[in-house]
Structures are given as structure tokens and as C-alpha cells.
């Protein structure tokens, strides 16, 4: 499923400032928590990993903040920073794709919807990736697919673990079938890392839907999710329209998915870094020479 629901996702976002991204907010700006309605000083929020101190609502985080939160100090070394989307289909419906790209770059200060790089988490060498919803709903086109694929390949080459924080409206329709095929490509890369018995941990952040959920995001050895994150294949609006049923309470939240057996744990953001480090301790701390044939 494509990004047909980032409208919905946008509605679900619980901040009220135009841009969600922490990086965008000059110190001194006030933000209203959409969950508890408290007005918060954005500087405090940023220092608190964008979790509301009153109700623990998890604001979305942009990719640079994510990297800063998770990577050991000074350990991050970006890879493929210059790899960007082009416009292979000369897509021009409603507005030219090139224009969307330019706008996304300007708005986010990023070259694409994902940042990847070498890093350490709790001392473990990893390849770390974080998606950024500000960049065309963090939809997956050729560039995102290529960067994710290279992240897996780099990890295999350097015997690192992979940690990916996802957030995405799905496939990037402006690249048509090239975009859909990135689902297969990234899944193939994840599968090869698995065969090499290297650890892969994913963190599903709000919102992760469509082609990203239905490919590399859920193929991790351990799948974590952030509290309240919307995670699914089809977005809630489409499900509602298709089935003409009202959705169950908490439908497609991280907690709902855990109850349905889909994620290993829902981890509050203040615990995320240490949880990742601990999980990596395990997945790299086996005492037995790999001998299974599976």
C-alpha cells in the first residue's frame, strides 16, 4: 500500500505547530501537546527527547534528533549522504515531483527521507538509519530503498548490527513501479543480513505504514515500537472506507499490535537507547558457535 494515508497520519500527529520537526523550532517557541493540551516550552521538549512531561505523549522526532538520541556521543558517521532521488518518470500530476523534492529538501534540510551511517549504540558497532517524516511523508522511493539496502550491505561487509528507526507513509508513488520494487529490494537485503546471522533491530515510530511496514521494517530479529505509534499496512482511513466498519479502539497502535503478537515490545522513548543497547548485548553475546542450519 502506498502513502494513501499520510493525510490521516498527519491528522493523527499530536502537535499543533506547523512543522513537527524539532530542528525547525527556534528555542523559545511554545508547543501545545495535542494529547493533554498542555503548552510546552519547545526547548524543554527537545531536551526531554520530545516526550510530553505531563502525559508522556511521544511527539514525532526528526531523523537528526533520532540519531543524536540513539548513537553514542560522536560515534555517528553518515554514509551515502549525497545519494538523492531523481525524477525518472517525469512525474507531473497536481505538482511536479521535482518541486516536491525541492520543497522537502528545503523544509527538512535533508537530502532524502532517511539518514544512514556507521554508529555505536552502547558500544556496539552498528549501521544506524532513521527516517524523517517531513521528507514527503518519509515515503520510500529509489533513494530510500537504495540507502536502506546499502545499510544492510555495509553491515554485512563490516560485521555490524543494523538498527533502523522507521516512520513512513509507504511507497513514493511519484516513482511508480521503481518505488514498489524497493520493497522487494530492501527485503532481499534484510534477508541476506539474516542469513549472515547479523543482528537487525527495528524501531517502529509514528507513523509507519504501507510499503515500509510491509518490507524491511518488520523483518528485524527484534521489532520494537514507540508508545502510541500508528503502525499498519493499510492506513486507518482506507480501512474504514473499504470495510465501512468503525475501527476497534486503539486500532493499529503499537500497543494493539503487541497484543496481536506483531511486535516484541513497546518501549517508551526515554528507555529506547538503553533497551537497544541491551538487546544488542544479547544478539552479539551468544556463547555458542553458530551451528544451526536455519
Amino acid at each position: 500500500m502506498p502513502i494513501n494515508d499520510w493525510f490521516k497520519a498527519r491528522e493523527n500527529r499530536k502537535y499543533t505547530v506547523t512543522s513537527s520537526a524539532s530542528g525547525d523550532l527556534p528555542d523559545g517557541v511554545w508547543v501545545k501537546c495535542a494529547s493533554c493540551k498542555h503548552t510546552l516550552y519547545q526547548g524543554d521538549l527537545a531536551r526531554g527527547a520530545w516526550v510530553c512531561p505531563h502525559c508522556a505523549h511521544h511527539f514525532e522526532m526528526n531523523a537528526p534528533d533520532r540519531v543524536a538520541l540513539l548513537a553514542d556521543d560522536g560515534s555517528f558517521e553518515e554514509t551515502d549522504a549525497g545519494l538523492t532521488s531523481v525524477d525518472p518518470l517525469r512525474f507531473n500530476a497536481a505538482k511536479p515531483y521535482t518541486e516536491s523534492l525541492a520543497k522537502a529538501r528545503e523544509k527538512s534540510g535533508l537530502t532524502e527521507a532517511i539518514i544512514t551511517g556507521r554508529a555505536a549504540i552502547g558500544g556496539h558497532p552498528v549501521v544506524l538509519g532513521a527516517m524523517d517524516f517531513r521528507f514527503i511523508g518519509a515515503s520510500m522511493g529509489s533513494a530510500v530503498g537504495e540507502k536502506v539496502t546499502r545499510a544492510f550491505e555495509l553491515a554485512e561487509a563490516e560485521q555490524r548490527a543494523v538498527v533502523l528507526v522507521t516512520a513512513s507513509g509507504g511507497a513514493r508513488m511519484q516513482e511508480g513501479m521503481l518505488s514498489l520494487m524497493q520493497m522487494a529490494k530492501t527485503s532481499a537485503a534484510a534477508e541476506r543480513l539474516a542469513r549472515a546471522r547479523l543482528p537487525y533491530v527495528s524501531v517502529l515510530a509514528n507513523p509507519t505504514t504501507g510499503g515500509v511496514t510491509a518490507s524491511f521494517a518488520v523483518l528485524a530479529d527484534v521489532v520494537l515500537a514507540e508508545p502510541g505509534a500508528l503502525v499498519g499496512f493499510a492506513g486507518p482511513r482506507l480501512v474504514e472506507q473499504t470495510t465501512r466498519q468503525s475501527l476497534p479502539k486503539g486500532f493499529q497502535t503499537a500497543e494493539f499490535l503487541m497484543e496481536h503478537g506483531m511486535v516484541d515490545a513497546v518501549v517508551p522513548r526515554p528507555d529506547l537507547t538503553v533497551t537497544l543497547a541491551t538487546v544488542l548485548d544479547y544478539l552479539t553475546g551468544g556463547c555458542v558457535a553458530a551451528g544451526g542450519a536455519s
Partner: protein
Amino acid sequence: MARHVMDFERPIIELEEKLAELKRLEIAGMPELASEIEGLEAEIERLRQTLYAALSPWEKVQVARHPERPKTQDYLEMLFTDVVELHGDRHHGDDEAIVAALATFDGRRCVVLGHRKGKTTKENIRRNFGSPHPEGFRKAQRAMKLAEKFGLPLVTFLDTAGAYPGIEAEERGQAWAIAECLATLSDLAVPVVVVGIGEGGSGGALAIGFGDRLIMLENAYYSVISPEMCALILHKDASRAAESASCLAMTADDLVRLGIADEVVKEPLGGAHREPEVVFARVAEAISRALTELCGSDGAALAEKRYARLRAIGVVAEGE
């Protein structure tokens, strides 16, 4: 025969109806109509050439969705023998929207997978109009692994509007089921031949929809999103689907151009449903060629090549 009429062929149908009337009158004693009839027949033929021979992407989508278009079960029946259907995902249920079978193609033992639409309303309800739930994909994954275990080539037929976006489908992990199919298929150590026969709707098609060869019927489509949904998102107006269809590069020819599909099987003028036997023969020939080329290879080499093939898909710029 209450044939399903697609919008764009209405002018032809109208002329055909007029022609039929003239013919009735002629037989009823008006031989003077003969030349008029002849003229009309020529006109119809010209119109047909004009209309059918240059279908727009959106018109192709109509043909791909034509209710009388040959379906997975038709290919299974016409091209294969000794079919043993394998049911169930061993976890929850048996999804009739996907068929899995042991089947023999020209003496070659295969595993066949395909989206299965119904031919009647009743069938379509049972098969959810060919839109799978997670158990369908999990059945498919099980069949893939069986194929790999016993060295059987996999042949799949794509014909779905997409994975079903329902409440229970989400509850049972639609995304997880699709992702696991993708991972399994990507590394499967047997030949995988994919045939796009009708609709190729997004992740639901892709889950069984890539491999070592992708053969597309001329009017089959394969798309990241349905044209209607794309129009709804871009223009807030689903009726502008024709525009979207043109933008999405979703036709068989587009796919070859993008390096995703390997070949296009020509359809009879007007679509596969007009002369299904011709289509069966051509598809059989294409599958035969693909299997012959692939079946000599060793499994690991096939998987390696498949990765290289996937790896090359995508267009990016590399700055810095």
C-alpha cells in the same frame, strides 16, 4: 451473450449493434442494404484498429479488469496437468484469494501460485475478489518453501487489486505476511517465473510478484498504487484516475522500459478475453522459454542472480 462493455469501446459496440440491425433488415428482405453493411463493417474495423491498437494506460486498466479476462485458474487448467491444490497457512485459515498448487507444465513439475478472482459473484465473495488476507500470503510463503525444499520451479500469476485493507487483515499482520513473502521469495533457491495476467496491485501483487523472469501480458498492469487512489491523493478526485494511470508508468511496456519486466505477451485486438486460446498459447510459450533457460542453473546461483537483478532497480543521483 451479455458481454461486459468497457467505456472506451462503446462507439464500437454501438456500431456493431447498428450493423446487427442492418443485417436483420437485409435478411428480412432489403438486399439493397448490402453495400451500406459493407461500409459499416469497414468502419468498425478501422475504429477497432484505432481504439484497440493504441489503448491508453487507463483503458488498459479497464481491459486488465475485464470480468471475462482469463484468470489464474484458467491458466492453471489450460497450461498445467496433474494439479494438486495445497490449502492453508497452518496457522489460521485457507485464503481462497490465493491458490497454491503442485502442477505440471509440459512434463515439468512446478509449484504454482496465483491470485484467484471469482467468475461469479458468489465465487468472488468467497475469494474476496482476489484480494488476499495475511493467511493467503502465509500459504504462499509455505508453498515457496516447499518448492525450494524439493527443487521445484515456482510459477506465479498476478491478478489482484491489492492486499485487502480490512480490520482483521491488519489484526493478523498483513504487513508482516507480505514482508515475509518478499524475504522468502528474494532468496528462494529455485527458478521463479512471474506472469502478470491482469491486475498487479501494489504490495499484494509484489508478495508473489518478482523473480527471475517477469512476463507481462500486453494489457496487464502493475502499479505501486491504483490510479483511482493516486488521483484521490493528488487531486482529491478519484475520477481523475486516467491522468494518474498515465503518470504511474504501470503498463507492460513501461515495466520493460524500466527494466522490471522482461517481455510483453501480445494480446488479441481488444484484449485477452476476445481469444483466450491465443493468449494461453503465447503465455505457455513464454513460460516454457523461461523455465528452459532457468532450470539448468543451480539454486544458489539463481538466488544470487535474482538479488543482483533486484539490486539494480531504482534510479538515483549520487552527489557529493
